[in-house]
């Protein structure tokens, strides 16, 4: 029974700016047949999903103008990455988990202090006497640098944003009719976790003449979203989605290099909502 309701929720389309948060209706339906058109049944955790990014209304005053050198692919990618982080860290949306940044900061500053200490020691003490300590310092520094590089390459990869959100949902748990529990104690905490990676794809696969500078020849920004929604402290899985999309940079940056942040945020919002709906593309 629960499975068919998921199909209905997808058929209702993506939310627009003005619709309320919860999609499913409250009125319980007596008819059990799945083909009864738009029959509403009690909301279960599978159909209902918390607010997606598109339902957050943003005013134009919130933003600073972003202007980059639109011939530099690195600057374009950094501008898009920053915009993703700004967009998804809004108070109503996800809370960014800074684990990768903190690990990089910690390891980096530790290696700087090791290097500074070793150099200072070598400066103060005679060369011959300082050799053992300086050698140890050098080995520690090289080790930390290798760990940093491996972490950035394997663990962090192309990650742009890792976020978490906890929402409270006042709803009926699917097993409430089996247990003799009162309705008021059926609050559940839904935990969501989202993970975005980005990369730049070159323009060579788009057209035959990649050497001509034109908007159709622009490199593309590829964004991949992985989304997990669970409850009961991560023990029951509610939804899982993974999507990927690419769009040319020229769709978001004009010829002066000014970024059209609304269009970009709309594109990101749609992609994230696809992920939240559980698409496994």
């Amino acid at each position, binding site marked *: 029974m629960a499975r068919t309701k998921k199909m209905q929720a997808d058929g209702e389309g993506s939310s627009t700016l003005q619709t309320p948060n919860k999609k499913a209706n409250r009125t319980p339906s007596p008819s059990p047949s799945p083909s009864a058109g738009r029959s509403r049944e009690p909301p279960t955790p599978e159909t209902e999903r918390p607010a997606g990014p598109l339902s957050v209304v943003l005013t134009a005053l919130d933003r600073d103008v972003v202007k980059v050198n639109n011939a530099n692919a690195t600057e374009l990618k950094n501008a898009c990455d920053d915009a993703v982080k700004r967009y998804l860290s809004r108070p109503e949306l996800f809370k960014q988990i800074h684990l990768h940044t903190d690990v990089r900061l910690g390891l980096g500053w530790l290696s700087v202090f090791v290097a500074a200490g*070793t150099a200072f020691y070598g400066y103060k003490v005679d060369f011959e006497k300082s050799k053992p300590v300086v050698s140890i310092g050098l080995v520690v520094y090289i080790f930390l640098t290798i760990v940093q590089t491996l972490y950035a390459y394997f663990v962090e990869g192309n990650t742009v944003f890792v976020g978490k959100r906890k929402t409270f949902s006042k709803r009926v748990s699917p097993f409430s009719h089996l247990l003799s529990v009162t309705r008021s104690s059926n609050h559940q905490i839904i935990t969501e976790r989202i993970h975005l990676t980005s990369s730049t794809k070159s323009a060579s696969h788009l057209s035959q003449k990649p050497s001509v500078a034109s908007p159709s020849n622009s490199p593309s920004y590829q964004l991949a979203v992985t989304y997990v929604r669970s409850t009961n402290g991560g023990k029951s899985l509610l939804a899982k989605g993974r999507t990927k999309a690419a769009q040319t940079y020229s769709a978001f940056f004009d010829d002066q290099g000014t970024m059209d942040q609304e269009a970009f945020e709309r594109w990101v919002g749609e992609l994230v909502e696809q992920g939240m709906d559980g698409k496994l593309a």
Partner: protein
Amino acid sequence: MFTEELKAFRRLGFRHVLLQVLNFASVIASGLMIWKGLGIITNSESPIVVVLSGSMEPAFYRGDLLFLTNPASERYKTGDITVYKIPGADIPIVHRVLETHDVRPKRNAAVAASVTGPNQLLLTKGDNNYVDDIELYQGLEWLERKHIVGKVRGFLPYVGYVTIAMNDFPQLKYALLGGLGLLALLQRE
């Protein structure tokens, strides 16, 4: 120019500022470590030096960059070009070895064992000088191995003038460091 950058920093947050400063600091740290690593590998206190005087002409001119190594087990021979530092004098001197004498092992074995490699006594002279370096030794009769910074293995002409310029005009040094720092802080990888 800076108001833009300060606004950007405030927007991006404290972590971002820490990251940018880390970029700059880690460049300096890696430079220091490369220098120290080179010193350990070559067993020399200062493996790269700049020639300051003309006492080794026509072999080396002022402004040449010299590369040194100091293997502990190597014997120095007449004709080797060495860089040495007299205790009490600040500046290392690069001259050629004129005479070498081997020190006979002392009867006290413990003392002899603390010296790694052959212990030699050396006399040096600059190619472009008329007399040997006795006057420069500040009272010593011979140079010992422990005074030697290293033996010259190779050189690059003219490159050392950058270091000479930065020593003669310290403003240049600070300007260069300041410029590098600004570049590292304002750039994103």
